[in-house]
């Protein structure tokens, strides 16, 4: 029996289709769960919060959806140890809900993905995420290789990690910094970061390692045709590098 994964749609979510597709392509029984179907959420094994502009990012990205009834179920599920992946807007919602880095109480955020720097505008750019913790630190990344490099598209206006110095220290010392931005060859430096994110952060995980929040979209570089440079690599419709993260999620669920 394939694991049942809910791909959540809040009012304003817009990346549900490609997220659902990649989850299905890696063998998960993925279902799109719409906000009016929130009551069906407890039956799922894992949850993916896709990208978009839930509530148009009004007030702050992720601020209003963090209080949506769907998040009550997600918070409950996370406390039960179920796996939760938030991508882009999904990541912002998880931070606003306090689930990631999870160093404070629920719905009391200790960090945020906020306006890009140096100039606060939306940035659409191909990037790479580099695993910055031991794979086993986070259940979703456990099946990845050490220092795994995942291609993705960054497409966000509020992707810069920001927190007080104490909380940033906590993030570092607690091993919450799951992914950093890197170049295609794996080099990590300031130039690889598209949004001035603190610590070069592209993704965070919580204490227990069952919740992962990443800003870039691996599902938008999940098939060979998604990057002009990969045109010549065999089957144009076959999965490409971005599928790795979702395959790792599937692996983690199959082992459960």
């Amino acid at each position, binding site marked *: 029996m394939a694991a049942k994964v809910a791909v959540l749609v809040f009012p304003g979510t817009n990346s549900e289709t490609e997220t659902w597709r990649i989850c299905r392509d890696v063998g998960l029984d993925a279902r799109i769960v719409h906000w009016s179907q929130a009551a069906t959420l407890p039956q799922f094994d894992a949850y993916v919060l896709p990208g978009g502009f839930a509530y148009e990012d*009004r007030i702050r990205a992720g601020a209003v959806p963090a209080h949506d009834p769907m998040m009550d179920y997600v918070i409950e599920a996370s406390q039960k140890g179920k796996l939760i992946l938030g991508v882009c807007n999904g990541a912002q919602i998880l931070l606003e809900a306090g689930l990631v880095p999870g160093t404070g109480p629920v719905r009391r955020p200790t960090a*945020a993905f906020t306006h890009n720097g140096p100039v606060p505008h939306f940035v659409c750019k191909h990037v790479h995420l580099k695993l910055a913790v031991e794979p086993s630190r986070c259940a979703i990344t456990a099946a990845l290789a050490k220092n795994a490099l995942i291609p993705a598209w960054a497409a966000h206006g509020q992707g810069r990690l920001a927190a007080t110095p104490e909380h940033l220290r906590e993030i570092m010392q607690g091993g919450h910094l799951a992914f950093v931005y890197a170049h295609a060859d794996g080099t990590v430096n300031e130039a690889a970061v598209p949004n001035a994110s603190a610590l070069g952060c592209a993704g965070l995980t919580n204490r227990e390692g069952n919740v992962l929040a990443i800003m870039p979209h691996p599902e938008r570089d999940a098939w060979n045709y998604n990057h002009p440079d990969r045109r010549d690599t065999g089957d144009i419709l076959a999965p490409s590098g971005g599928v790795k993260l979702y395959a790792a999620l599937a692996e983690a669920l199959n082992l459960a």
Partner: protein
Amino acid sequence: MSSRTVAIRLKIPDNEAYTALTALRRLGVDIARLERAEIWTFEDRGTEHDFVERVEGNETLFNPNKHELHLLEEGKPREGEAWIEELDAGEVAVRIADIAHGRRFVGWRLFSEGHTPADEATVRSATEKLLCNPAIERAIQ
């Protein structure tokens, strides 16, 4: 040199204010109305009148087709209002004639029934529950 503060609001419907109002009500913050404004404080040399004219002359801040501007008597939040500022914002570069920087806040003004400004406890509840993320912002009441 005097400190001048302006509140610039949309005079066309403010969708963000509507979402904030409904979200706060769902969170149990009992308010009837909510106004959102961009609050700017500047150090300025000239008269009040000249200052307002110069602010109105900067299209990136003020477009008369969609904004209305109020010069605030005091450089602090009005009754029922909270100002939210990013922790690491500092001074923001913006040009008002020869002024080059100002401080920027988002002003949320809450009202109970009628035109009554919401009380302090309500405003604090609103900022704590939704309007301010203490990880990156501070709220001034």
